């Protein structure tokens, strides 16, 4: 398919992205959408810090502040961190296992568009009498009491985007189980693939409880059922359980891929294989498993009683063990290595102390009796920002720099990258370290202001100043991305020079079919092994033959768009708007109509013929 190399107009490119089922392009879509929501969530964070910079501030009103914190949390978790993680999973995982695409390319596209429309729907709440204001946890008694449609936007938006995440996770599981290249046994899979695998399993088990919780809340708010109405025999603690049975694994869904990215970076730039690979795999699986056993530590103060609290306290502490194994394995990977301080490596190195700080406060929080003091204070805010920013966001920024050449074929500027890093690193610690103390000094979280005379003033100001640095870092990154794209200096297969895994054996970006011939994997760090034996690339595992590829399709977009339309109908039906039912029906018709077309229309994809592939070879590797 020679269309790949052609210069296309904007319209054609747009149509290409709207209909693509190629995992690499879907990765770019995830990256753009996730990056966009990350900026929105970041702006919300800036507003929060402006409001809290001085006591009794009136930059935003109390009600608006609650909307901002709710949207900041929800956006960052569901619409920024998750899709950005998905971006790298999509971009890298199929390449790492030597596959030509994910198992279900069509479903992959559907997953993206569901997430995207769910996220857009949620954010449109700003323009329809107010965003959700019950916190990202949306505890039931407050959510049920919330006026306006904010919480309805939350419920419907997350339901739609959660569906996308769930099918995305299933897709990755099937891909990793079925589509590994010859020789790629489980214990030869790169760590990022392993974490993608475990994460996908977590998604599979964690999202259904959220779906159930959201359905119950939807019924309560829309149809007057009483699952969470205490006076009618409902129970709001059920929501807390459902939410956290989802919510705790969710944080591992975010952090495990982050571990994966760092487990790629550290061996690469230390030129040394990952220390204790099998124990790293074991620790990943164990963290994933234990992640489901500890949800009630978010509810130590709910009043579950000492037996439950004690059990969950000890279970939570247990997670420190596999996490500690990982930290020491990373350190020992670098030990004796040849460490090159590239931008991704800067993040990887900074990640260790930052994440350890977040991890140890996690253990402190696990001490149930002491948690009664920490719970719902700024100590917790500091803790989870240390793990999520110091872990996940560092990994996402590192991954952006690391995989940018693989995704776009050009390197981000290293100097600007390091400036971004230092600004972000300093700003991050400045913002969040002091918050530990604010919490211990008695400042509850989610407060829209605080009165003077409680000893909170200076520290809050410092924290807000830190946010300035982080904002600058993001601006420098955006500048870097624009400048790099304008210059567009093309790079080869292994632009870092230290690539170890299969993705670096391919051109940057890879051709749309990834591997002309599936590679033969002869061990862990397959590409590194070949390089060490003086070979240029991978040994093929099959003769050159026809490649079966899926057709592009506009249907995933339409299916998701239909649900987006239907959600508006469902939401405004609560106001007895006459147009709401027709809109609901129209939306569902679009969705089910698209599904019907997908079901009855045969789409066998197409074949790239051997001859075309040979032509490529004659022309040499495309840059």
């Amino acid at each position: 398919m020679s269309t790949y190399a052609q210069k296309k107009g904007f319209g054609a490119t747009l149509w290409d992205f709207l209909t693509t089922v190629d995992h690499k392009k879907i990765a770019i879509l995830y990256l753009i959408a996730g990056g966009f929501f990350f900026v929105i969530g970041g702006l919300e964070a800036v507003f929060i810090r402006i409001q809290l910079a001085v006591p009794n501030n009136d930059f935003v009103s109390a009600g608006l502040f609650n909307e901002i914190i709710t949207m900041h949390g929800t956006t960052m978790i569901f619409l920024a961190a998750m899709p950005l993680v998905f971006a790298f999973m999509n971009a890298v995982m199929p390449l790492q296992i030597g596959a030509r695409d994910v198992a279900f390319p069509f479903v992959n596209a559907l997953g993206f568009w569901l997430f995207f429309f769910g996220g857009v729907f949620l954010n449109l709440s700003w323009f329809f009498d107010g965003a959700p204001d019950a916190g990202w946890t949306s505890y039931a008694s407050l959510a049920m009491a919330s006026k306006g449609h904010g919480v309805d936007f939350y419920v419907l938006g997350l339901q739609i985007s959660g569906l996308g995440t769930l099918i995305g996770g299933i897709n990755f599981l099937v891909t990793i189980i079925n589509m590994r290249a010859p020789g790629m046994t489980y214990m030869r899979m790169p760590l990022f693939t392993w974490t993608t695998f475990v994460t996908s399993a977590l998604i599979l088990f964690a999202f259904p409880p959220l779906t159930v919780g959201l359905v119950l809340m939807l019924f309560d708010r829309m149809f007057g059922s009483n699952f969470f109405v205490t006076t009618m025999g409902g129970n709001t603690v059920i929501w807390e359980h459902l939410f956290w049975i989802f919510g705790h694994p969710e944080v591992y869904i975010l952090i495990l891929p982050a571990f994966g990215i760092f487990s790629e970076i550290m061996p690469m730039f230390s030129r040394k294989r990952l220390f204790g690979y099998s124990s790293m795999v074991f620790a990943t699986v164990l963290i994933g498993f234990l992640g489901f056993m500890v949800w009630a530590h978010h509810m130590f103060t709910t009043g579950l009683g000492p037996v439950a609290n004690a059990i969950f306290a000890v279970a939570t502490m247990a997670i420190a063990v596999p996490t500690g194994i990982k930290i020491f394995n990373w350190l020992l990977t670098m030990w004796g290595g040849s460490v090159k301080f590239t931008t991704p490596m800067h993040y990887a190195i900074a990640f260790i102390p930052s994440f350890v700080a977040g991890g140890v406060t996690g253990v402190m929080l696990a001490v149930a009796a002491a948690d009664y003091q920490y719970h719902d204070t700024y100590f917790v805010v500091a803790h989870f920002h240390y793990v999520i920013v110091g872990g996940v966001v560092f990994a996402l920024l590192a991954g952006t720099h690391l995989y940018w050449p693989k995704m776009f074929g050009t390197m981000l500027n290293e100097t600007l990258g390091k400036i971004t890093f230092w600004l972000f690193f300093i700003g991050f610690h400045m913002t969040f370290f002091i918050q530990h103390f604010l919490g211990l000094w008695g400042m509850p979280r989610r407060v829209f202001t605080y009165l003077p005379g409680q000893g909170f003033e200076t520290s809050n100001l410092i924290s807000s100043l830190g946010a300035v640095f982080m904002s600058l870092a993001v601006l420098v990154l955006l500048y870097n991305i624009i400048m790099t794209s304008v210059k567009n200096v093309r790079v080869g297969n292994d632009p870092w020079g230290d690539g170890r895994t299969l993705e670096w054996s391919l051109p940057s970006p890879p051709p749309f079919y990834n591997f002309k011939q599936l590679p033969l994997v002869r061990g862990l760090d397959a590409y590194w092994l070949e390089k060490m034996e003086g070979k240029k690339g991978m040994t093929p595992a099959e003769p050159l033959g026809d490649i079966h590829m899926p057709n592009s399709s506009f249907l995933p977009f339409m299916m998701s768009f239909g649900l987006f339309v239907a959600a508006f109908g469902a939401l405004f039906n609560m106001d007895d708007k006459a147009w709401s039912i027709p809109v609901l029906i129209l939306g569902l018709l679009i969705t089910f109509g698209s599904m019907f077309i997908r079901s009855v229309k045969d789409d066998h994809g197409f074949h790239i013929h051997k001859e075309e592939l040979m032509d490529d070879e004659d022309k040499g590797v495309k840059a």
Partner: protein
Amino acid sequence: MKRLAKWRLISIFAILSLILSGCGEPFLSTLRPAGEVADIQYDLMKLSTWIMVGVIAVVMVIFFIVLFKFRRKDEKIPKQVEGSHKLEIIWTVVPILLLLILAVPTVAATFKLADVSPMDKEDSDALVINVRSNLYWWEFEYPDQGIVTGQDLVVPTDEKVYFNLISSDVKHSFWVPAAGGKLDTNTENVNKFWLEFDSAKAKEAGDLFYGKCAELCGPSHALMDFKVKTVSRADFDSWVADMKDVKEPAKADTALAQQGQEIFNKSCISCHAVTPGNTTPPEARFAPNLTNFGERSRIAGVLDHNEDELKNWLRTPEKYKPGNLMTDKYPQLSEEQLDALTAYLMGLKVEE
């Protein structure tokens, strides 16, 4: 020599105050524990912090060695090491041991803090207080004494005080940081726990601890403060007696205040009681009991307790506590009416 000693003393005090300021305010900070519960929790904090500082130290030593010793100097390929069983066993077993050291006191303390058995014993003389949280105000009912008050919790020092916690509307959380950790006030069930207030520490805090709502509950979550007045057992008993003496709404003594009382009886009394007896069921107590309003430490939990602030509050409660349930529940008050009402409310005192 004497001068030197003086300087030394000053510098010691300076360092001490610096350390103490790093521990927050004595009336609010969890790092200035003022009772048995807070002490237990503070000890656990210290234990976990020390263990964690040890872990961090080990990590940081390895970290910095890596940072400086193993920088890339040449293009040599380092030895590819698979791992080390010995090391891996060490860093699996040592953390497990450390966690055991932490887990045992954790479990013990968790059970100790949840022990409310004296509450249920028949004819026990344990002091029990029912806390009911409402959208942005707190009600404190002393069931055995038969009195209800709001916003300012009065407790005796040096004894265990037991709490029944519930919420009337949405979930809140009851927290007196200096005295001990929080417990949620759920909408469906009563949560129970105990606190103890140390008299010496209470004195340092000016016998007035800050209490907070620690669960997001709406726009004015940040302003849902309450105060805890600590008094000796004897003073507590006399306060209870004084409160119980108020059987009928107290008659205002000045002409202005009497005028205020008339306004109050017309516009306010349907929500605000001015007798401490709890004859009305909890669901019908829509607003804080004002029996001893004149002796409270804050207005609406957050404003200074003076006439100007009271008038401000009565004029536009929405401005000071967004989303509160008092706004628009009473007719607009003229300045004269405000003067009268303020005089009446400020005169609501039970102690002499």
